[in-house]
């Protein structure tokens, strides 16, 4: 790395590779209640607009964050307001990434019934993961080392 010559103590810090790659991030720590879904969606909308993303892109991000936070509140933390839903948004050269962590016991995503199977069409729930997978380019779940599950979703620019 070539260090810039700067004799003034007020010189700006050089931009590191990591800062350049992940240009912007935002973190939210939300209580496990339904209002948190709106709160996360409003924050993501603002963050995505400031990143210069368009309406179609933002619609997808909005839907994905609403579904994932709703899942974390309902199924992960089971409305226990002492458990937080942690949301991390980042926009980089790779795309727009959303990470949502709950503090629940976890689940096996592949065992969720396919809501488009004829026998499931009239079920009243179970479509959130389908929407997340339909509107984002990458969706994956993992166990967090500190407990709970994390869903990571990426939408490429």
């Amino acid at each position: 790395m070539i260090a810039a010559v700067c004799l003034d103590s007020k010189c700006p810090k050089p931009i590191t590779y990591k800062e350049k790659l992940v240009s912007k991030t935002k973190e939210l720590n939300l209580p496990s209640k339904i209002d948190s879904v709106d709160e996360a969606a409003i924050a993501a909308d603002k963050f995505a607009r400031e990143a210069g993303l368009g309406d179609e892109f933002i619609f997808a991000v909005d839907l994905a964050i609403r579904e994932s936070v709703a899942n974390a509140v309902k199924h992960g933390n089971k409305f226990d307001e002492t458990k937080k839903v942690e949301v991390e948004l980042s926009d980089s050269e790779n795309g727009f990434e959303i990470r949502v962590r709950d503090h629940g016991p976890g689940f096996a995503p592949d065992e969720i019934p396919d809501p488009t199977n004829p026998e499931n069409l009239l079920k009243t729930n179970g479509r959130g993961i389908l929407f997340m997978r339909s509107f984002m380019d990458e969706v994956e779940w993992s166990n967090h080392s500190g407990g709970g599950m994390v869903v990571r979703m990426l939408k490429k620019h």
Partner: protein
Amino acid sequence: MADINISERQAGDVTILDLDGKVTIGEGSVALRNAIRRLLGEGKNKILLNLGGVGYIDSSGIGELVSSFTAVNKEGGTLKLLNLTQKIQDLLAITKLLTVFDVYDSEADALASFS
């Protein structure tokens, strides 16, 4: 401001609910559920949901549409959908629910289909 406003009109024996706002988890879905329950309680079981003013719906809202559909069917009635926005049409296509719901672009055609 409420997530959704639901107003009611009557066209013969068909009740039209004009929805304006968001049908999402929480208030929007609950408002739709309550409106449908109230109509069924009043014996009104031919229902046309006008979704032209619904700018946003999530999986919970879609679930509420399905729940409304089955509740009305159980009472021997019919629930149909009118004026889907492109976004809602896309979501119903992804979930294969366009094969379940009777959907119309024209109110006159929708009303005629009830008779």
